[in-house]
């Protein structure tokens, strides 16, 4: 080869290296961002295991694929892991809480516990640390509907005093639950989250290291990490790493690998709605009503009794109007490399004024006047129609969110009971399918939200045993309660008694349980320190023992159970935006003020049940002690006022007609005297001319 040619080749190599290095700078992987070409890059890629080695499927004991090491070759994993889906554990305190959203719910039917959990500092939710829930326990509870990362990647520190002992032992076996990019970005119909052979089953087996491999259908996994005896594992980490893949054996589908051991992944930038649905589905529960004819001497009447909740038929329900018209979730819920997916709020602080702020209902349909770009000011992105809202006074746009009239199920006298994928673990099929009716999530409940606008919310009433320190309530983990109060809660008895899906809980049981918990509470040192009180919270009420302390002076008989409402005990609610109904099904459409402004409108006077397991057994069976609240009580509106105001709408048509009639008469008088004046003027001019 000519020396000159060698120089040219050398230069070309240098240029290429510099180019690729430039692409990878500024915190970006070479696969991040885009070069302007809108086609999807084809992903025929080499897979890497969790040790960073190239994956060879033909080995006797191959290791499972690691998304962190495989995708992380070209994409900045650290940046991605700061996105909304992966940052709730708040490893970085500077990350934002975001507006209130759906919590994780720690449920236990035996102890009658429903605790909303989130580490985002949302009002009403408890942080895992508040209830001593370790990241390991968190993963066990909620890992089935989870894209990985976050709590799954918190490496337990064996030297830490606060480390969960179980996690210290089990995490080396189960491995870390890395971000599974394919949960969202795989367009392959084989991506399996919920079947018995899918990712969720691996989570149930604590096979966190293997979740992505099985979920993507790359191979099968035999073995259960939770069943592996920790004492059978070698102490040396290297040997343990080898031993574990022998005990939990991965067999790859050789047909997926080409001759160079590369695999084609059908990856898309914009995941389809099907991918989102696994964790973000909701299901409507229908109340089955039984009509009972009651005859007495004086009258015959028919009473309606709710007998059970049953699922709404899928094929008669409609999906969100946006999806029906051809959009998909990611058309509005977009993100950059940081995976901070837009949540439908006006998010100016995110930068790029207009481009992002118009990814909201208002911005997309009406535009954002404050946006930099003219197109963003005009609105109508993706062909969004400009709503006219005829006959809707503008005060409604200050007081209500768009979703108030347009989203969720149509409001009914009693809110619909819903189940959500994450809370009720929907989407798990086959032998690990579970039917969880609790908690009773009600929707739509119209609540004044953080932005001071009334919006439809999902809502449920937390229930938990806990400790009250003056005005602060701290829930207890169900297993701690069960340990202390197995007998009063009858946890060893298999009872089929159910009252509105709950195992009924009598006030006597509450009292006995509280006594058991109270007796175990540490006594404060010093006279000025308040004595912590055992409490049970359910249905918006606190149940606690009357004055005294069973651990010291009082006898059991001296205590009484006291139930009271407390302003710190509120239902947990979060705003909903979907499904958006067609415009013709909006509230107030066609000038129908009565949709909300009537004396019995569900919007204000819907009955929100304060769901509770507390019940008493009478002659006719169990009777749940459920109270109800008017929806207006969650809207910071005076109930009496809105009653009067809505009542005035009864006379509204008459008032409009009366005023119109008056205006017509006044206009007639004006016209009459104008004509008379004109006549006088004409006469005067005429007389002048004649003279």
């Amino acid at each position: 080869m000519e020396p000159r040619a060698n120089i040219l080749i050398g230069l070309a190599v240098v240029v290429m290296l510099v180019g690729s290095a430039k692409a990878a700078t500024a915190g970006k992987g070479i696969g991040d961002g885009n070069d302007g070409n809108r086609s999807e890059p084809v992903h025929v890629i080499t897979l890497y295991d969790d040790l960073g080695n190239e994956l060879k499927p033909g080995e006797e004991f191959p290791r499972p694929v690691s998304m962190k090491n495989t995708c992380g070759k070209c994409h900045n994993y650290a940046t991605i892991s700061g996105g909304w889906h992966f940052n709730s554990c708040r490893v970085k305190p500077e990350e934002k809480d975001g507006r209130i959203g759906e919590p994780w719910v720690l449920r236990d039917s035996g102890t009658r516990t429903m605790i909303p959990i989130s580490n985002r500092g949302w009002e009403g939710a408890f942080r895992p640390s508040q209830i001593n829930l370790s990241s390991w326990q968190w993963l066990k509870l909620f890992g089935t509907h989870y894209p990985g990362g976050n709590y799954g990647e918190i490496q337990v520190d064996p030297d830490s005093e606060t480390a969960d002992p179980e996690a210290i032992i089990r995490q080396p076996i189960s491995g870390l639950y890395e971000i599974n990019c394919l949960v969202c970005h795989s367009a392959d119909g084989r991506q399996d989250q919920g079947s018995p052979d899918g990712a969720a089953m691996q989570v149930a087996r604590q096979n966190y290291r293997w979740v992505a491999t099985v979920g993507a259908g790359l191979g099968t996994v035999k073995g259960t990490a939770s069943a592996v005896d920790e004492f059978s594992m070698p102490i040396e980490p290297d040997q343990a790493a080898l031993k574990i893949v022998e005990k939990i054996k991965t067999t790859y589908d050789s047909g997926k690998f080409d001759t160079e051991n590369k695999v084609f992944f059908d990856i898309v930038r914009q995941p389809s709605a099907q991918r989102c649905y696994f964790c973000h589905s909701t299901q409507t529960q229908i109340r089955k009503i039984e009509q009972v004819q009651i005859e007495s001497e004086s009258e015959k009447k028919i009473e309606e009794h709710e007998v059970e909740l049953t699922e709404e038929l899928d094929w008669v329900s409609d999906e969100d109007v946006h999806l029906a018209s051809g959009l998909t979730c990611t058309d509005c819920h977009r993100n950059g490399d940081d995976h901070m997916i837009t949540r439908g709020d006006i998010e100016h602080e995110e930068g790029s004024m207009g481009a992002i702020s118009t990814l909201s209902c208002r911005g997309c349909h009406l535009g954002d006047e404050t946006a930099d770009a003219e197109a963003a000011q005009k609105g109508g992105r993706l062909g969004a129609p400009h709503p006219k809202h005829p006959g809707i006074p503008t005060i409604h746009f200050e007081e209500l969110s768009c979703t108030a009239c347009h989203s969720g199920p149509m409001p009914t006298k009693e809110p619909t009971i819903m189940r959500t994928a994450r809370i009720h673990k929907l989407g798990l099929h086959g032998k690990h399918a579970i039917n969880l009716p609790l908690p009773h999530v009600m929707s739509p409940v119209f609540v004044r939200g953080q932005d001071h606008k009334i919006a439809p919310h999902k809502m449920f009433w937390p229930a938990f045993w806990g400790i009250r320190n003056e005005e602060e309530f701290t829930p207890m983990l169900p297993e701690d309660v069960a340990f202390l109060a197995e007998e009063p809660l009858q946890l060893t008895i298999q009872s089929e008694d159910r009252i509105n899906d709950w195992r009924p809980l009598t006030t006597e049981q509450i009292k006995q349980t509280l006594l058991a918990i109270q007796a175990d509470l540490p006594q404060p040192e010093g006279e000025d320190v308040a004595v912590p009180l055992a409490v049970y919270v359910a249905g918006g009420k606190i149940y606690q023992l009357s004055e005294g302390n069973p651990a010291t002076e009082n006898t059991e008989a001296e205590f009484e159970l006291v139930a009271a409402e407390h302003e710190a005990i509120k239902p947990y609610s979060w705003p909903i935006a979907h499904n958006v109904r067609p415009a013709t099904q909006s509230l107030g459409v066609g000038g129908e003020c009565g949709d909300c402004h009537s004396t019995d409108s569900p919007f204000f006077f819907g009955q929100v049940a304060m769901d509770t397991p507390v019940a008493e057994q009478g002659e006719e069976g169990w009777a749940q002690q459920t109270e109800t609240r008017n929806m207006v009580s969650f809207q910071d509106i005076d109930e009496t006022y809105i009653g009067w105001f809505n009542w005035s709408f009864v006379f509204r048509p008459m008032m409009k007609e009366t005023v119109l009639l008056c205006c017509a008469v006044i206009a007639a008088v004006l016209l009459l005297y104008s004509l008379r004046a004109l006549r006088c003027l004409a006469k005067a001019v005429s007389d002048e001319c004649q003279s």
Partner: protein
Amino acid sequence: MFAIISIWSIVIVLGLVVVHWFACPVGDKRDLSFGGLVRFKVHVLTMFFLGQKLSLVGKLKKLVYMVTLLCFLILFLTGFVPRLICGVPLSGYTLMIHATFAPVFAVCAMIAIVGYAQQCRFTREELDWVVRLTTCKWKGLLCNSALGGKLTFWLGAILILPVALSMISSMYPIFGTHGQEILFELHRYCALVLVLVAICHVYLVMRAKFKVD
């Protein structure tokens, strides 16, 4: 902006009324003693009574006129005070009171306009006043004329229409959001002008009444 315009315009009109009252006294001499002021107030008060000399129709007309003024005062207080004094939009119980008295005002205003239209029609005297104005014969021009009272009557009658119709039409599904905003602006600015006209009208009517008495 609206609040500033409202406050300034009301202050200016009230100021003009006071200036006019002192510049063009009704009687030959003004009694500013304590007794005189008491008599003045009693006189003003008696204007709101139904005179014994009035016929039944006259009594009814005056009664309706008084109710119209009362309703208008309530509408003014509920409509303007929250915005001007408290800086908050009309809402809550105030809104309910406003909406309750609005149709009553419309009905009373209609009856009053029908009842007083004939009395308030323009006559030869008003034409003479215009002639005096145009021929520079201005002595006593601003002191001795019923034109102001009549003019404000008809202006009020005209202004009631946009004030009422702007709100009523917004209750029908005709106008969109932008239209609603325009109607609302129209309502409050027309209402402001109506308030100014009403202040002048009441002053001029009372002045005329003083003159008669």
